[in-house]
């Protein structure tokens, strides 16, 4: 039935809901809308799971184990539930989901503008216009690399890369590499580039330390079982702060190995403080490294304590290995506070400093003074507008693939009510007019 609609309006038209983005979140919403028989299209700038095809480095694997890769009514059924998908495997998984749910996706369709016209939205694309009553923004939170302004002061002779254009160490010359940022991305790139024989300096700010496996089980298993991933945005103390928490230092490898700062410094990576400026061709690092490492160690200690208490209470304790505690993060006596970027010893700077969403095309009054979307658990401050997949949007798991299911159920229900009410309001207006 939806297929017919797709053929009837190949280049735009009128539809109840436009979903922007055919990644896992947009497709999960599509399934939810289809199940409620809500007429919709999914507009995709490239292909299904586009960023997983074109914006990931070669060695990247998901940070969540395969058994946790689930979408509404769909889950991993392969032979390696405890493994971690490569990017091509993620593409395959999401594509298979799209086929299963028969999603009305229009690929190669880039949204250039969303604006309000009366009580509807107008969605302009490179292939026609759509008029709709609701819009679901599922274009992701990782559109633009968040590179600090002082990046402009880097010497022109350096190669600079973001995780969007980094693929493998073969892209780099043989000189040293400064990796800025110590979340999952920064640690993984620092490790891989160091293994390639290049000298790596890693600039470390606030970070979240986590072992890959704890008491014999994947850390994600514990986070899920304890209920941490299900914590809701309206139940935490400070949601603004919670949403800013960086991604944990994890890596998905067939060996299920942990990757942390201690391992990197043992292997010979130079660990320095947060990069806070570039002056006269010198990178300047913060003297706050000991505190950043102490905070991450304390936070890890609290997490493990929470897990152990839950394991004890639930009886899981008897099925798993004994509690473990990890050595504090080693910080050198006096790590360098600056690095000469003009000496010729450094060839590349990689910004593993996170991403921000791109809302340049969103012409509705829903942005705050920092360009972020004003929303209440995904319900945007403009009627009929919804967002998906942002960090801790409704739940701590909102940005994960397996977090989409609960969010689209909540937001899908809200959206269905909104459509019903707005139809009722129109009927009333027509009767009055």
């Amino acid at each position: 039935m939806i297929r017919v609609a797709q053929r009837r309006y190949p280049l735009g038209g009128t539809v109840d809901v436009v979903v922007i983005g055919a990644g896992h979140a947009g497709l999960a919403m599509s399934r939810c809308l289809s199940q409620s028989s809500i007429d919709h299209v999914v507009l995709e700038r490239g292909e299904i799971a586009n960023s997983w095809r074109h914006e990931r480095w070669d060695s990247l694997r998901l940070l969540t184990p395969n058994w946790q890769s689930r979408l509404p009514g769909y889950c991993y059924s392969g032979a390696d539930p405890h493994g971690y998908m490569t990017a091509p495997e993620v593409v395959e998984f999401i594509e298979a989901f799209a086929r299963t749910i028969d999603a009305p996706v229009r690929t190669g369709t880039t949204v250039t503008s969303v604006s309000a016209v009366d009580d509807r939205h107008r969605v302009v694309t490179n292939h026609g216009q759509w008029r709709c009553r609701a819009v679901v923004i599922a274009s992701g939170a990782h559109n633009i690399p968040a590179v600090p302004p002082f990046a402009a002061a880097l010497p022109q002779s350096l190669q600079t890369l973001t995780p969007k254009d980094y693929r493998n160490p073969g892209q780099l010359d043989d000189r040293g590499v400064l990796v800025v940022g110590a979340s999952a991305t920064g640690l993984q790139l620092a490790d891989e580039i160091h293994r390639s024989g290049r000298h790596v300096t890693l600039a470390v700010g606030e970070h979240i330390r986590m072992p890959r496996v704890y008491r014999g089980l994947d850390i994600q298993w514990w986070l899920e079982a304890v209920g941490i991933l299900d914590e809701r945005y309206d139940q935490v103390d400070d949601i603004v702060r919670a949403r800013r928490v960086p991604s944990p230092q994890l890596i998905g490898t067939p060996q299920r190995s942990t990757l942390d700062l201690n391992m990197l410094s043992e292997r010979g990576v130079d660990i320095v403080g947060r990069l806070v400026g570039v002056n006269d061709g010198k990178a300047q690092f913060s003297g706050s490294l000991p505190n950043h490492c102490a905070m991450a160690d304390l936070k890890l200690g609290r997490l493990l304590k929470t897990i152990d208490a839950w394991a004890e209470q639930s009886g899981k304790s008897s099925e798993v290995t004994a509690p473990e505690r990890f050595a504090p993060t080693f910080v050198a006596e006096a790590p360098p506070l600056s690095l000469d970027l003009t000496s010729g010893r450094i060839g590349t700077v990689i910004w593993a400093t996170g991403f921000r969403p791109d809302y340049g095309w969103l012409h509705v009054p829903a942005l705050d003074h920092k360009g972020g979307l004003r929303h209440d658990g995904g319900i945007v401050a403009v009627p009929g507008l919804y967002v998906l997949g942002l960090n801790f949007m409704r739940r701590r798991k909102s940005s994960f693939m397996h977090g989409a299911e609960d969010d689209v159920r909540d937001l899908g229900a809200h959206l269905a009510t909104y459509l019903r009410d707005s139809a009722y309001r129109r009927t009333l207006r027509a009767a009055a007019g």
Partner: protein
Amino acid sequence: MKLTAVKVDNGVNVEALLGARQALTEAPEAARFKWRATCSWINGTHSRSMVRGYFGLGAEQSHKTEFSYDADHPEIFASEDKGATPVEYVLVGLASCLTAGVAAVAQHRSIQLRSVKATLEAGMDIQGILGIDSEVRNGFDGIKIVFEIDADASKEEIAALVAQSQRRSAVFDIVTNPTHVAVEVR
């Protein structure tokens, strides 16, 4: 055993601080402050700095009284030692900022403090300021801070207080990160 609810009171009005945070989130321009000091040379290395007015919440503000700080160098530098050295004022600033932070964070986390004592030590090779060796920097080569805290909290909770205090401290940020300094002569 009789259990009584004890109200935690470190003398910090956390409600007011949280209220200010909420208000300033909605009006970020009011959050722009200007801190000021004046300094007059007296004699030799002796100077006196005064602090009174500052700008914040969109208006000129003033301390209740004017505060005065004498700075000098000790006698081993052939000075008269009429006040703490300027670098010791940096330690004073850092210590008092972190200590205030510990109290505020403890109040917010419902931890009753009984005593907080910070001891600071900063290393400096004065070959730098004397121009003996240009490879030696003028400033500290490091600062060591030891906090001794007696409070109704576990060792980890106290460590977390001190860590969070550093995370939110203005002077810690000023000391650990570069700051632009523009000096002009009129």
